[in-house]
């Protein structure tokens, strides 16, 4: 059976060039970067090369990159670290309702410690209102934390504009760029970003690796205490294989960014247009054009996401959903709800995220299989028939009116 992996926003396979490099750093260049001997020096060199590669991708300086155990840790470090180091200035933080839980729950944990957090609402396409942001800023606002690309619906947020606002007001600006790093151009200076989180496993490197960019001069307290690694901001013996993998993957992503974005945008649009054309009662979630290349999220009405995922899985297609039934809780995705999407429509959400391995044949295969599955599930749905009737009644009524 054909296997089609369309969950690249969840994680990616490690690319072969990276596997090769990791292998070398697991076996030959295994030294501790803090050691004086040659083994240590070679490992140190690998780590510093990776730092340069990552810095180059976002136009930062190498000494502004701090390696972490992933996007989640980088988000925690940025938010808690800023809060702890700046609380004498103020205790107000601004974020959005559609952040990843790594940001949302970190902000919520600060509320318990006496901080105040504004969770900005979003528009139906998951964009934000800049005027609302401006009016939410207070004298005691110390941090704005916002994602660059929403992981669930793919909408790109206006980071540059927000950066300008933050700069004018002298507020520290953190960007969760886990979904955009290596996929969209980022310039921390042009965008006035002070802190930026990135993660390795979304760009064909290893799980459990990431980094936080910290603009020189930004006051931030460490979460961990111990050795002097990462200039004491993130102590602990470095995950050398993970770091060199992240560095190389970032370097390659930078080289391929433009061409890959163009390729994925075409495939994405083909998939979106095909779904909207072939399946009735479907809506696209997120912004139509201002979205990550390769990111598709649709709501298919009258059916539920988990059963859809299971059926797709039986056909070899791997996707994800914001349905409550997949979340282990009784509520569908907080992102879809914040966008004003009703529960039952959020239930039928389907996210397909394309990546390096995705081909046009894969897209064609999905467009062939998905309509059949939807039809099968709809034929089981108590909502579908009654809706059809309602629509027909409405139609007959309106023709009568005419």
């Amino acid at each position, binding site marked *: 059976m054909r296997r089609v992996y369309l969950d690249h926003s969840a994680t990616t396979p490690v690319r072969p060039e990276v596997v090769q490099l990791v292998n070398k750093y697991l076996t030959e260049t295994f030294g501790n970067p803090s050691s004086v001997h040659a083994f240590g020096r070679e490992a140190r060199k690998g780590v510093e090369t990776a730092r340069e590669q990552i810095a180059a991708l976002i136009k930062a300086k190498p000494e502004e990159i701090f390696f972490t155990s992933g996007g989640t840790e980088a988000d925690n470090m940025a938010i808690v670290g800023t809060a702890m180091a700046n609380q004498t200035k103020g205790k107000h933080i601004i974020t959005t309702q559609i952040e990843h839980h790594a940001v949302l729950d970190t902000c919520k944990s600060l509320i318990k410690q006496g901080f105040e957090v504004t969770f900005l609402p979003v528009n139906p396409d998951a964009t934000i209102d800049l005027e609302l942001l401006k009016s939410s800023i207070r004298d005691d606002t110390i941090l704005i934390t916002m994602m660059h690309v929403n992981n669930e619906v793919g909408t790109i947020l206006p980071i540059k504009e927000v950066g300008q606002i933050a700069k004018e007001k002298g507020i520290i600006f953190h960007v969760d760029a886990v979904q955009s790093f290596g996929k969209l151009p980022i310039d921390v200076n042009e965008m006035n970003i002070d802190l930026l989180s990135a993660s390795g496993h979304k760009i064909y490197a290893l799980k459990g690796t990431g980094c936080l960019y910290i603009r020189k001069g930004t006051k931030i307290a460490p979460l961990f205490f111990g050795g002097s690694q990462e200039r004491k901001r993130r102590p602990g013996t470095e995950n050398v294989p993970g770091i060199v993998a992240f560095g190389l993957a970032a370097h390659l992503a930078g080289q391929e960014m433009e061409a890959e974005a163009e390729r994925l945008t075409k495939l994405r649009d083909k998939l979106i247009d095909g779904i909207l054309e072939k399946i009735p009662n479907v809506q696209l979630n997120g912004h139509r054009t201002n979205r990550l290349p390769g990111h598709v999220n649709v709501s298919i009405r009258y059916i539920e996401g988990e*059963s859809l995922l299971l059926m797709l899985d039986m056909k070899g297609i791997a996707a994800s959903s914001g349905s409550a*039934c997949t979340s282990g809780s009784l509520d569908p995705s907080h992102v879809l709800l914040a966008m004003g999407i009703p529960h039952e429509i959020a239930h039928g959400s389907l996210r397909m995220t394309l990546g390096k391995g995705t081909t046009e044949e894969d897209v064609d295969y999905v467009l062939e299989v998905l309509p059949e599955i939807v039809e099968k599930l709809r034929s089981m749905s*108590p909502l579908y*028939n009654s809706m059809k009737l309602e629509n027909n009644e409405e139609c007959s009524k309106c023709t009568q009116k005419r």
Partner: protein
Amino acid sequence: MYTEKVMDHFMNPRNVGEIENPSGVGEVGNAKCGDIMRIYLEVEDNIIKDIKFKTFGCGAAIATSSMATEMVKGKTIEEALQLTNKAVAEALGGLPPAKMHCSNLAADALHKAIEDYKNKQKQKEQEQNK
């Protein structure tokens, strides 16, 4: 995470559909989770001659609907009333803990359909007695 039995009933659900002029209909739904299950009965001489379901929900919800309908088809009303949610889950070889809440839908919908059938019977009798 699902057993083979669950996947079988999910991929090849038994008794999907509706019954025209049913003897009884039962619908339950967890409004918050948004899952809905509807069961149609055709009863003759106190025996469930036919049973159909329609379900909006996860794999477990569809599989439990299918299993529950299969378990009571051909049974008497009294026997069908004995069916518990637990028995349905057990017949499927168990369900993941997070899915126990939606497995409650099937037997509940069945019991509601039987209740509806009984009410209709009572009405008929009253009309005949008039």
